[in-house]
């Protein structure tokens, strides 16, 4: 099926760049965006920038891998003196 290029493709494409990178667009919309991006440096750059952003975010997860500090269960331990049914009732009330 032949896709007709429209004059408003740029305004249509810009808010869909992230959806495109995510692979959420249907065939027709994806093709329309790709055809437009081939001729639009702004949208083409936007797609590459979003992909770079996703890589950067993923990389930040790797770099921020951290260990939970010791003593994270301290409050829980302090809370164990009472009857567990009391703590459930207390939580219901919050």
């Amino acid at each position, binding site marked *: 099926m032949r896709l007709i290029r429209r004059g408003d493709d740029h305004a249509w494409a810009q808010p869909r760049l992230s959806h495109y990178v995510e692979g959420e667009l249907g065939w027709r919309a994806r093709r329309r965006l790709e055809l437009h991006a081939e001729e639009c440096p702004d949208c083409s750059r936007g797609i590459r920038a979003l992909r770079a952003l*996703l890589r950067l975010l*993923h990389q*930040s*997860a790797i770099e921020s891998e*951290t260990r*939970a500090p010791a003593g994270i269960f301290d*409050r*829980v331990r302090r809370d*164990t003196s009472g009857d567990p049914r009391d703590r459930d009732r207390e*939580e219901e009330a919050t």
Partner: protein
Amino acid sequence: MLRTSFAIERRESDLVVAARGGDVGAFEDLIGPHADRLYSVVLVLLRDSGEAEDVLQETLLRAWRGIGRFRGRAMIFTWLYRIAVNESNRALERRSRRASAGPVDDAVAGVAAPAHHGPARRAEQHALQQALGDAIAGLAPQYRAALVLRDVEGLSTREAAQITGVGEAAFKSRLHHARQKVRAVLGDAALLSAAS
């Protein structure tokens, strides 16, 4: 593989039952394997190690007090993430009130662009990571959570939507908004430079 998964599930359900009965050791065994990841998420959301530790402790306390209501329909980590994100959002609200600032989203426009003129590429990358952290911190809590859970933590859209308590369509809308905001703050040139 299925056997292993079944064994883990069985063990988790046993631990849940024991924790409901007040066995704090069982609770620690149940939650402990998720603690590092939980802390990492809270730290990215809050960018303050002291506050993150406090929120993590509060998250675990709420989980302990609420374990009686955990029915096992959700996975344990999804349930924990949900509590952690809610607690982080509460902390952000408290911080916002303390600072008497306007909506957090407004801060986005004030975040400095990453430096491009560093003598070494390593320094440039570091500056970009710093700017990325600033840009994430400048997002309103609901957008920040969407970006961190999906793009930093790598959760599926369905998992992340469940954790944030919204439908998948609403979650995607938040995610795309967050990406566009962060992209606008960092600038395409800096992002492409980092990728090259």
